[in-house]
């Protein structure tokens, strides 16, 4: 058990760190179904609830579809609500994800990113969340254990803000983050309680004040409902920035929606999302810099709402941007992140050439050495018309 009365530097498995922080955030209700590699989170939470260390209702449900349905019920009655899933589990609850956000339920969900089968894979990549881009949730990514830990109270705070009231997915790479023991600085219960006030629902199901949440939306209102939802998701960025700034002031660790590393004088950028690409990419960037190449890195932390302005500002005018994806839009525009980056830059005067590379699918490593080679090759190919629309790397043809 972590001593929550003092801040300390400890070694801990990232799943457990996330679960321990969920505990400090004091959810009222958790409804979850186990699926590798999320299992350590929900197992730990169910243990600490059973041991009386977390005063929450833990509801073991029979499927992920039921988990999200139950979470909506919990949230609608005014509970601070948490769940977690991966891969097929996320997809099984997919139809309900749309409902959760449309009903403005500020549920926090840990998404331990894992490949969508088939073939059957339990290993990590981002195809689960990329198949759920349009569900109307806020989506953020942690690149290491410290970030996943710190972003957890931020997630609750953003979601429950009355200017937002939207569910939020906290994405963490399956296995490569979730199952790794690494060091991080903990926070105390007092730290978290002072940062994250109790949940005050704006609206809830209450027999004394009967309302209907989640009604039918007929032709006359559906469009307007979607517009309001889209506006709210876009506007949540303001609150995200505020919450990150407040966290930074209080605890000394500053997070941004889009992080930059050595971008100032870079003519070439790699763009990454998630910790596997993000941190291994960091190694590649330093190596390229040692060789005198002016390479920098952009790390996407906020995926929804999509950070159009940051992307245009940071990527504009570069000689080359190599966008790494851990998912592929089959038969479509290649890497999901790359395709959205291209969309953001379409029509911009200084739009850079973009190479979409798809790597590290289904748990395969992306090696820093290969990133170096890929960037070097792309630097040679740019401007010669040789850059493909997208390319999967490391394939044994």
């Amino acid at each position: 058990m972590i001593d929550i009365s003092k801040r300390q530097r400890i070694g801990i498995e990232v799943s457990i760190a996330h679960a321990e922080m969920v505990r400090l955030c004091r959810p009222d209700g958790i409804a979850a179904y186990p699926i590798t590699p999320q299992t350590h989170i929900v197992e730990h939470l169910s243990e600490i609830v059973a041991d009386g260390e977390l005063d929450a209702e833990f509801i073991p449900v029979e499927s992920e579809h039921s988990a999200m349905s139950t979470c909506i019920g919990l949230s609608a009655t005014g509970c601070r609500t948490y769940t977690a899933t991966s891969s097929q589990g996320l997809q099984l609850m997919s139809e309900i994800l749309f409902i959760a956000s449309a009903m403005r339920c500020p549920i926090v969900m840990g998404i331990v990113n894992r490949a969508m089968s088939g073939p059957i894979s339990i290993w990590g990549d981002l195809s689960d969340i990329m198949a759920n881009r349009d569900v109307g949730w806020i989506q953020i990514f942690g690149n290491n254990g410290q970030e996943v830990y710190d972003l957890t109270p931020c997630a609750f705070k953003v979601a429950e803000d009355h200017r937002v009231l939207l569910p939020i997915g906290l994405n963490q790479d399956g296995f490569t983050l979730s199952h790794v023991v690494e060091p991080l600085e903990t926070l105390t219960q007092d730290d978290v309680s002072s940062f994250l006030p109790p949940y005050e629902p704006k609206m809830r199901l209450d027999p004394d004040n009967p309302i209907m949440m989640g009604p039918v939306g007929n032709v006359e209102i559906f469009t307007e409902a979607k517009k309001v939802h889209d506006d709210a998701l876009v506007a949540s960025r303001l609150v995200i920035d505020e919450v990150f700034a407040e966290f930074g002031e209080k605890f000394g660790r500053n997070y941004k929606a889009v992080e930059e590393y050595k971008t100032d004088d870079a003519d070439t950028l790699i763009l990454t999302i998630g910790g596997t690409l993000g941190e291994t990419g960091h190694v590649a960037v330093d190596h390229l810099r040692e060789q005198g190449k002016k390479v920098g890195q952009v790390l996407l932390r906020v995926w929804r709402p999509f950070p159009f302005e940051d992307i245009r500002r940071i990527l504009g005018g570069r000689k080359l941007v190599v966008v790494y994806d851990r998912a592929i839009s089959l038969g479509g525009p290649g890497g999901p992140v790359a395709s959205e980056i291209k969309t953001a830059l379409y029509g911009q005067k200084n739009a850079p050439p973009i190479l979409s590379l798809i790597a590290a699918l289904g748990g395969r490593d992306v090696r820093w050495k290969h990133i170096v080679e890929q960037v070097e090759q792309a630097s040679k190919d740019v401007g010669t018309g040789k850059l493909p629309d997208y390319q999967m790397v490391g394939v044994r043809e």
Partner: protein
Amino acid sequence: MMNTKPTCAELELGAAVITPGSAREYETGDWRSFYPITDEQKCIACGVCWIFCPEASRILVPRKNKGSALTPNFYDFDPKYCKGCGICAQECPTHAIKMAQEEI
């Protein structure tokens, strides 16, 4: 032996496995730390161990000493696949099976 790194061209349609019984190639016998010893006097060849064995590693072998046994064969283990889980010993209705430690 299994090709663990097939190329795209070598994958079957839908990554299907078209060789039947290919699990046979994976000899899991060297995984075990314990192995089952069956007392053939007590074994009545009821087949309960055979049903419960998760690795299909119970095999009929001839009794050395038929004596008054009803069957010419009794159940022993297949060392190529037996993982030493002990389920057979647990389930045997005549307690004919004991688990012993493998030599290292």
